[in-house]
């Protein structure tokens, strides 16, 4: 079956072409069958290929499929070629699996939207791009997927294009991502001109021989690639587009802005782990940015009132965890968290979508409350996801987060400070998530009567995906249990062939103080305890004694206001970057172009005109003035010769 790898991305592309070219002429049932069917088939194929890959020897689990040569100029050759290895196998399973559930969910969620077929066309196009991104066997093809998902994100954020805020948000996402892509491009140039290839496998094997370990060039290349990752995965300082991206339909937020696209940066670093392992300084930067973002975004999430915005900041924060893992050279932990996060965060978004759907498109949690009994399935599944993201032992999020925390503490490239930041973030996460749950599902029903009378549980096409994801959010982490529990970490073993090249060039990075299993236990208990405390606090603040939270708000009104306004970062960018550029551009246009350059040109024409005009006056045709000039001339000449 491995000769059919190409079908995995192509099937959704075909779905896109059918729904896109039909121009709204197909009935809804056909549109949804095409859209869900194509990605469903991709999923089935991915599962089959996964097992075929598993049947191979671990060392030979690398399958490349070349479709055709793409660009070939001089020494530069790039193919349209796909790479199936343990890492991309995991990614295609997540993308097609979670993607399929979200497609199904969308059938219900979007059923009344006039742009139904356009929506599914975009969604399929996105799936195609994302699968190209993860299956690419070289940097350039990855970049194709990379910009392709950016385009789909742009289109889907601005899906309701009549809303100014939606099209603004789409544009912002695209442009901020382009800033990241600028780094990606330059990073790619350094890699190519040093290694002589952009093929991942060749780069992995050649890079250690051409780059000096820790050298400037490799560090620069990694940092530039990381700039790309920062843009796509919404890290400081380029995270600003993601919260705004919530303008898009909620299933889009689940698929693109939680489960798949935003994790592309993490995937890219894992894919190029050899390069990053050669540049410890760059790894350190990755860890610092990741940790800082995790904490920073979590604090903003504490006070937001829009249910989707809380989840958006939560996503930014969780992505920070993944980068932290990569930064401490524990790529497999990063990918593990990527996977579990895809399950529970997609579930959270879809649950939020179900709530919004029931609430007649209300997103403000202050107008919700008591939804538990109206939306029982949504509530149960949402609660499971909340427990998972908070890191309650036994659920998927616990295992992946715990591994990251432990690695950030114990690995040689880690540092206790990273652990402390991750630990605090874990507490904050539990707090804001339970705040959300209490405000939404418990307490008084704060909505108006009309909305209240229309409350209803969502249709089956929406609740079934929720239940499947809930199951995954529980068991998804069991494949990667820590060694101290006496279990085998299947996940890490599965990925180890991919990361072995990187480990070979920097054996130092992964060494850990292995003897300290008691320390590992201690840290694990500490974080679980903190989470429980946080949940208890949220319970007190937002359910039992809501006066507490108001009092707190008043007492710390300055802090609260800063957080509510997201540290005024958007305003800062507006004042320092956007507006100056616009004024400068106006200056260039009105002053430099029109006044100076064109002024000089038109001026030279005018001067020429004036000179002609002056000379013309001599040619008046009047005999008397000719005679006068003639006489004057004679006098001057005579004077000249006589004085000589």
């Amino acid at each position: 079956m491995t000769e059919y790898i190409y079908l995995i991305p192509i099937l959704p592309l075909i779905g896109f072409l059918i729904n896109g070219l039909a121009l709204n002429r197909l009935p809804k049932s056909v549109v949804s069958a095409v859209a869900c069917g194509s990605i469903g088939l991709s999923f089935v194929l991915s599962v089959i290929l996964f097992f075929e890959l598993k049947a191979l020897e671990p060392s030979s689990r690398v399958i490349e499929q070349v479709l055709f040569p793409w660009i070939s100029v001089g020494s530069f050759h790039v193919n349209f070629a796909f790479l199936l290895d343990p890492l991309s196998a995991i990614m295609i399973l997540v993308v097609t699996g979670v993607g399929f559930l979200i497609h199904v969910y969308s059938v219900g969620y979007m059923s009344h939207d006039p742009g139904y077929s356009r929506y599914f066309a975009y969604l399929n196009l996105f799936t195609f791009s994302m699968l190209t991104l993860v299956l690419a066997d070289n940097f350039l093809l990855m970049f194709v997927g990379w910009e392709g998902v950016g385009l789909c994100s742009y289109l889907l954020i601005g899906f309701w294009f009549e809303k100014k805020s939606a099209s603004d948000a789409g544009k912002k996402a695209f442009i901020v991502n382009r800033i990241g892509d600028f780094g990606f491009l330059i990073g790619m140039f350094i890699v190519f001109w040093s290694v002589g290839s952009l093929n991942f496998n060749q780069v992995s094997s050649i890079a250690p021989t051409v780059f000096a370990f820790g050298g400037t060039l490799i560090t620069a290349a990694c940092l530039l690639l990381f700039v790309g990752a920062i843009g796509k995965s919404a890290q400081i300082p380029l995270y600003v587009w993601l919260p705004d991206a919530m303008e898009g339909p909620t299933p889009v937020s689940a698929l693109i802005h939680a489960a798949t696209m935003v994790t592309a940066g993490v995937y890219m670093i894992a894919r190029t782990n050899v390069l990053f392992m050669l540049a410890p300084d760059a790894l350190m930067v990755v860890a610092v940015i990741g940790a800082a973002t995790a904490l920073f975004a979590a604090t903003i999430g504490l006070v937001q009132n829009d249910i989707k915005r809380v989840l958006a900041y939560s996503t930014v924060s969780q992505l920070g965890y993944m980068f932290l893992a990569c930064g401490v050279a524990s790529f497999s932990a990063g990918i593990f968290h990527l996977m579990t996060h895809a399950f529970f965060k997609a579930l959270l978004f879809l649950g939020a979508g179900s709530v919004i759907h029931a609430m007649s498109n209300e997103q403000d949690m202050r107008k919700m409350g008591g939804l538990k009994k109206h939306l029982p399935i949504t509530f149960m599944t949402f609660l499971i996801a909340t427990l998972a993201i908070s890191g309650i032992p036994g659920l998927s999020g616990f295992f992946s987060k715990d591994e990251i925390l432990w690695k950030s503490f114990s690995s040689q490239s880690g540092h206790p400070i990273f652990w402390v930041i991750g630990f605090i973030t874990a507490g904050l996460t539990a707090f804001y998530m339970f705040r959300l749950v209490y405000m939404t599902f418990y307490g008084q029903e704060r909505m108006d009567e009309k909305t209240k009378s229309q409350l209803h549980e969502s249709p089956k096409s929406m609740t079934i995906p929720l239940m499947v994801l809930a199951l995954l959010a529980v068991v998804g982490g069991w494949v990667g249990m820590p060694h101290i529990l006496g279990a085998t970490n299947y996940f890490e073993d599965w990925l180890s062939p991919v990361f072995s090249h990187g480990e070979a060039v920097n054996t130092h990075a992964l060494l850990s103080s292995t003897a300290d299993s008691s320390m590992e236990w201690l840290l694990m208990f500490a974080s679980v305890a903190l989470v429980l405390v946080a949940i208890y606090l949220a319970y007190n603040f937002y359910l039992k004694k809501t006066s507490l939270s108001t009092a707190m708000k008043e007492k710390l009104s300055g802090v609260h206001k800063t957080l509510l306004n997201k540290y005024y970062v958007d305003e800062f960018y507006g004042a320092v970057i956007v507006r100056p550029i616009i004024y400068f551009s106006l200056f260039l246009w009105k002053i430099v172009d029109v006044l100076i350059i064109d002024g000089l040109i038109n001026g030279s024409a005018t001067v020429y005109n004036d000179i002609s005009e002056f000379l013309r006056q001599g040619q008046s045709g009047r005999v008397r003035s000719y005679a006068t000039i003639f006489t004057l001339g004679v006098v001057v000449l005579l004077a000249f010769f006589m004085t000589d």
Partner: protein
Amino acid sequence: MENIILTLIIFFPTLGALLLLIIPGDRKDSIKGITLIISFVTMILSFWLYAMFETHGLGMQMEVNIPWIESMGVGYHLGIDGISLLLIVLTTVLTLLAVLASWHSIHHNLKGYYFSILILMTGMIGVFCSLDLFLFYVFWEVMLIPMYFIIGIWGGVRRVYAAIKFVLFTMFGSLLMLVGILYLLYQYQAFSGEYTFDILKLYHTPLTFIEQMWLFAAFALAFAIKVPLFPFHTWLPDAHVEAPTAGSVILAGVLLKMGTYGFLRICFPMFPDATITFLPYISVLALIAIIYGALVAMVQKDVKSLVAFSSVSHMGFIMLGMFALNIQGLQGSVLQMLNHGISTGALFLMVGMIYERRHTRLISEFGGLAKVMPLFSTLFLIVTLSSIGLPLTNGFVGEFLILLGLFDANKVYAIIASSGVVLSACYMLWMFQRVVFGKITNPENEKLVDLTLREKLVMFPLIILIFWIGIYPKPFLEKIEPAANMVMKHMERASSVKFDEENSRLVIIDDSDAVLISTDYETIKK
């Protein structure tokens, strides 16, 4: 066939133009029909040429060399390489589409209009085929006159100002070029005893460094004005805004390429030392053009002048790629000449379509078109994306190769130029948002009709080309490669460069010891 095909392609439109002269001016349909057929046949001829062209052939193909004015050494010398081949095909395709686009937008004096377009076509194709400087100059000037009329008669409100500005600018440049041509002629005569205008022979004219510098300056100014390179660009926004749609399409699509083509065909091979010496200055101007054009485009209020300034920015990329003097940069540049013709041509066509409906091009007059003109909006999106170089569209392949080549030649230039990629997304998407997205605020937009069959036909080939070049650029790149290598080989006679065959690039050498200024990579130093 091989020796008359070029002559046929060049003069077939002229024949058509003469035929138009005998048709009464009030038979509008016949005039339009004949022009359409003539330009269609010319396009088919150019496809035939494409098919006959030997992809990996070295040197010029389909050469014809007949003495013309023997006493002066003027010859009717035609021939093409991959670069000219692609530009010829671009010319014929865009001209046909321009004719189709003019169908309902030109109302008076049709005969004169279509006559001008056909003569213009002869001029453009002639420039790309000429291997004789005299002939080249004649075609170069022939092109100017019909364009002057197209802008000046069928243009917008300030058409006369724009037309005169366009002609004076270009004339100024081409007169200096004429002086250069004559000097070259005498220099060659002093060396070999014969007069010749033959470009391929003149490549071997012995010139001192100072002579090269002066001649380069004379030719480069003519070409830089055409490109247009900052700060010689101010004729462009005026000409574009005032020209009718077809004029803008041909102007942006083909005429600007004559500048870059001139550098490759004449400046680089004839004055290689001067090229190297001028390289940093021209590169800096091109960098300024990229950033400056993009920033000024961002604040334009008129869609057409926005596209015009974006051309300044894009042409800056093409200049930089050529001056990278390696195979990636050169091939990327030539491909980007084609791409810019396709994307910008398509943009002007689409702007023309909404102009015909609303008689305005002010961005603020639009908004919400996605609702009433979904097909237009979709195609406009594709063209916009191709213009900002999204992967799998044509623009990406060209831009990427240019930047890749440039990075090898000069990292700083490449990094600055890459920022243009971000800026292009800013101005294009902002414009797109204001035109297509949002609610319809102007009631006049509510009754707009989507694309007609004719308009769909106009857009169809361009959309195909956008994806074809983006997904499978091989057939195009293959054709450019031998020609691009040839340009570098011709430059090898310069004292300051060596052609590095293995990596297909020119290496600039110091007098003392061989140092690559192009790069300081460890890997390459080995």
